[in-house]
């Protein structure tokens, strides 16, 4: 039985738009913040796992080291759509779990443009968007949401309430892109992008970075870092298994359900033990699906779950108290480590005004369309 792996340092920059900065520059900032949080330096790191999507072929990890210290350590650059950051973190976790290294660094970073993601279709001939239906991300997740509406009668208003909640949460998070309340009428009357997702129900494209220092149990004790350390109870990655419609309708549900099942089993906990969740609310419709996929409520109960305020701060299982992708922002490659920062901060009792009271166990979830699902379960240790 290999020993446990701990997060001993973790941080993120305030998400925003930084067109004048470079990707390695943004990544280096978070890396240094995480190292400072652990009280360690780059010279203590034995490997770097770097997640970035849009410059996946451009050695971002090495370019970060060129800014903060070229110590010659192995660097792995990974890309896995919106699960990129979680994948980098998991690669780091595996290396320590396998006892190859004692202390490693994981960084997730992204610089985004504005505008719609997805669609296009590519290939020869003529453009396909709007000819063979829609392929933009808001459309894909609108269709997934409407599948839930078809099954359970979920309403536009219930989807919209997710966005009201997450925007409210973000007013308590100084690192979120926005800190603005968006009441229900404002969300529902915002520009319709792809029904039932209005503009305020779509995640915000921002630049950002986050980083974590992972450490073996032996090394945590040796360094005297157990007090603020956060234990990784489970790290799971899945891809989408075959589903009847998945070639025209990407399936974000099954891979999440598989990952949740495995994560709960590996951690030896159930959804009732989870004190907070940061899940992949790339669109308001998606969050509704994941309440059930992660078993935070029963099948078909997601609409009622949001109506009753159970995923709100102070509710049964607070979801996306950071503001989520909807308001904190969604820098693709950074998202999977930023949500680990959020949960770890609560487990350490350092989340300030948005602190989930007495949080002991938290769960992070991301989905990369295409598809990849990453789930981590973290536990307070100090």
């Amino acid at each position: 039985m290999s020993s446990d792996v701990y997060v001993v340092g973790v941080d993120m920059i305030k998400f925003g738009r930084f067109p004048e900065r470079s990707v390695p520059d943004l990544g280096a900032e978070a890396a240094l913040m995480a190292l400072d949080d652990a009280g360690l330096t780059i010279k203590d790191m034995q490997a770097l796992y770097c997640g970035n999507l849009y410059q996946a072929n451009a050695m971002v990890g090495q370019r970060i080291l060129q800014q903060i210290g070229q110590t010659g350590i192995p660097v792995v650059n990974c890309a896995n759509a919106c699960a990129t950051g979680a994948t980098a973190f998991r690669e780091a976790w595996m290396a320590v779990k396998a006892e190859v290294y004692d202390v490693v660094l994981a960084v997730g970073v992204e610089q985004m443009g504005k505008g719609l993601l997805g669609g296009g279709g590519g290939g020869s001939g003529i453009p396909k968007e709007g000819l063979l239906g829609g392929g933009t991300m808001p459309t894909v997740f609108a269709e997934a949401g409407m599948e839930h509406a078809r099954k359970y009668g979920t309403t536009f208003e219930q989807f919209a309430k997710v966005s009201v909640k997450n925007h409210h949460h973000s007013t308590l998070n100084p690192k979120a892109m926005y800190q603005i309340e968006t009441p229900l009428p404002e969300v529902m009357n915002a520009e319709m992008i792809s029904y039932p997702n209005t503009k305020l129900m779509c995640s915000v494209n921002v630049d950002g970075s986050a980083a974590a220092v992972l450490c073996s149990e032996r090394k945590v004790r040796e360094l005297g870092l157990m007090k603020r350390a956060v234990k990784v109870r489970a790290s799971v990655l899945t891809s989408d298994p075959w589903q009847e419609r998945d070639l025209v309708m990407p399936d974000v549900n099954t891979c999440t359900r598989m990952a949740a099942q495995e994560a709960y089993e590996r951690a030896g906990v159930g959804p009732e033990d989870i004190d907070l969740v940061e899940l992949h609310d790339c669109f308001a419709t998606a969050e509704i699906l994941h309440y059930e996929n992660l078993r935070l409520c029963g099948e078909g109960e997601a609409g009622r779950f949001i109506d009753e305020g159970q995923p709100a701060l102070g509710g049964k299982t607070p979801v996306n108290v950071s503001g989520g992708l909807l308001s904190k922002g969604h820098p693709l490659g950074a998202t999977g480590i930023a949500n680990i920062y959020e949960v770890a901060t609560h487990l350490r009792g350092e989340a300030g005004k948005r602190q989930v009271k007495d949080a002991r166990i938290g769960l992070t979830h991301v989905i990369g369309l295409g598809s990849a699902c990453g789930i981590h379960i973290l536990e307070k240790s100090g």
Partner: protein
Amino acid sequence: MSDGNARPLPAVDYLKIPEDGEPYLEGSKCGACGAVYLGSRQVCSRCAARDQMESIRLADTGTLYTYAIVHRSFPGVDVPFVSAVVDLDGGGTVKGNLMDIEPDPDKIQFGMPVQVVFRDALGRKDKEGNSYLSYFFVPRG
């Protein structure tokens, strides 16, 4: 070069335009497990069987499984339009525009029967000026 009398090209490779006869959507059916796919392929991603794929003609009728009403898209794309996921009768799921219906959630019913129709690709032409034939859905019955 553009030729006024030239036959349109198929917008996607699974749309077949026979020399004589009506256009249709082509699919593949796995002889081992029965899974149905759009277009042709060698291996079944459901059961991993190899060389069991049989080419089939997909039905031109089906039912609406799910949809989105797209109000914002890329520059040059006419909005709003209904992006529809349709389960074809006899197997296969296809995505396309649902036409001849108001883009209003009150007017669109899950499970409604639809007909697959073949029409010009909304006037879109390639760099050589060629016209294309595409498929669309319209309400049936």
